[in-house]
């Protein structure tokens, strides 16, 4: 481990997650130590069951580690209460899941606005950010649609908009393209690459989609809950 002089978006120290199941212990994450720099575009890859989701959930404070520690924005998540964790997610972490990210009773813009509302950001500012972002992301004009009236790709874009609009330290995207066809998936990746480049948003992905791995600035391969390889890459199409 190198000395930590510059701040990181997220870092872990010897983090373990052991699930106990009918007396059987599943070691999903086995002592991972890593850090993600602000502005990075990291893909955690590996076969199904290797611990990608568990690792990302620990990054985002959705799952508490069995041992070891996790820092987001240099705050130790393992020392935070449930309430403080919720607050940290609200302000510092964006999530994009595989599907069904949106609240079905809210329109696209209301979904994207939701965490800003909870943060108490002024209406004018909210509207400005959403208008701008929706245009950038290519979903301008869909603001008042309900999720059921959006395609899968459009829904994922709204989810990305919601994740980045609050300018979090970190966006965690777990298999964001798994439910999309190739074209929609490529378009979504393009847009996240753009956001990373233009706004400096930090992305950490979990995926087994080769197309997404190709876009990685940094590719971390997991096997059985451990880091197998961790390499910087010259991503395609950038």
């Amino acid at each position, binding site marked *: 481990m190198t000395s930590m002089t510059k701040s990181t978006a997220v870092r872990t120290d010897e983090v373990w997650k052991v699930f106990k199941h009918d007396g059987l212990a599943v070691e999903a994450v086995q002592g991972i130590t890593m850090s993600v720099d602000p502005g990075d575009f990291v893909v955690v890859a590996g076969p199904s069951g290797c611990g990608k989701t568990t690792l990302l959930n620990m990054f985002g404070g959705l799952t508490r580690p069995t041992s070891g520690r996790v820092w987001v924005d240099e705050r130790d998540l393992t020392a935070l209460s449930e309430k403080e964790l*919720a607050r940290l997610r609200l302000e510092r972490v964006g999530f994009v899941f595989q599907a069904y990210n949106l609240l079905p009773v809210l329109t696209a813009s209301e979904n994207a606005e939701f965490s800003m509302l909870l943060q108490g950001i002024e209406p004018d500012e909210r509207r400005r950010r959403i208008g701008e972002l929706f245009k950038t992301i290519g979903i301008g004009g869909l603001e008042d649609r309900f999720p059921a009236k959006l395609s899968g790709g459009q829904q994922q874009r709204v989810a990305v908009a919601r994740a980045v609009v609050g300018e979090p330290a970190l966006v965690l995207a777990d298999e964001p393209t798994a439910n999309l066809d190739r074209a929609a998936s490529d378009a979504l990746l393009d847009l996240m690459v753009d956001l990373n480049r233009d706004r400096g948003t930090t992305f950490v992905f979990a995926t087994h989609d080769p197309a997404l791995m190709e876009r990685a600035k940094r590719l971390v391969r997991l096997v059985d809950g451990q880091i197998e390889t961790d390499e910087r890459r010259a991503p395609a199409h950038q």
Partner: protein
Amino acid sequence: MTVTWTVLPKLALRNVRRQARRSLLTGSAMAIGVAVLAFSRALGDGAHEDWIDAGVRMGSGHIAIQGPGYHASKSIDDRLGPDGVAQALGVLGQPGVAERVQAYATRFEVQGLALGATTARPVMISGVDPTVEEHFSRLGDRVVEGRYLEPGDRLHAYVGERLAERLQLRVGSRLVLNAQGADGEIAGQFVRVVGIFKTGLPEADAGVVQIPLGTAHEWLGVDGAATTVAVLVESGWVAGEMVNRVRDAVGERDDIAVMSWQEAMPELEAAIKVDDWGDYVFHIILFAIIALAIVNTVLMSVLYRTREFGVLRALGLTKGQTASVVMSEGIILTVVSGVLGMIVGVAVTWIFFRNGLDYSALMDSDFNFSGVVLDTVIVPTFRMQQVVLSLGSIFIIGVAASMYPAYRATRIDVAEAMKFEA
């Protein structure tokens, strides 16, 4: 964070609307429950008002002013003398009392014997003012033969049908009344039957003889006296307050006793209480059904939407905020259905039964109840207090019933909820 106060309930409102079919189903079930509640409450109150009204008219009024001891002894020795009567009437004429007195009746009632040609029967002989009783006891309305007593009548009697049968009396027949007079001696009095009544209440039909008050005074040697000054106030709801006012106005006198109808007729009050308990049990069952409907609907919607709650938590909602979304859903559902149900219940009751619900078809004979003959038509009564109380109870039930589903929502494991099968 003030915004969450509007954001989360708004989200809850949308959720309730989205599950329109389920909400509607629960909502209407609840609404029907509340409507039944409103209806039964109105009828219950209406019935009790009828009971009290019938009871106090036939009995000793909302307020009975008597000589002390008369209630227990029913003896002529415990009568109210002319001075007491004057005092009582003076009190009833006072400002603060007079406006709310609907009627009062001065009566002289004694236990005695009615002798026919061949047999005798124990009876309650009641000396009354026929003009007053027309509006008070209204026994005149129950005439089946002849007529009711009239002003100017002297040696006349109005008797129950069963008594007439037993003593073989008809209109125009003569009978002798025997009772103890003021001097302690048994005195007899000839009277002639002018009318026969039937109330349906055996005690009255077989055991009551009404004669003019003046006749009773002369016969028993108790000029100007009364056993009871019975007072009818404007409604049963103000009776308690009026008793206190009359008591205050009478002051510390040991020759006058003021009694509420509850004291004078404890069996009537007991009957109403028993009936109230029946209502309470019914309402508790109704509330339990409503509560179960809410728990079921809200819990189902929570269990069915674990992923949504997972998203909310991932977005940064605390457990408390997540619970408040669920609570809001339950409360919105309850309040909307509760208010609708109340409106429907009150409206239906008003439109169809405002003139009274006739349940005589359900009764195989005359309905009487602890010494009170009752009408078989109940006119529902609406009291703001009852409506507010019912709505308040519904609201509390809504809150209570939403607690468990809300708790369940906080127990959702976010990582688990957001899982996808590979």
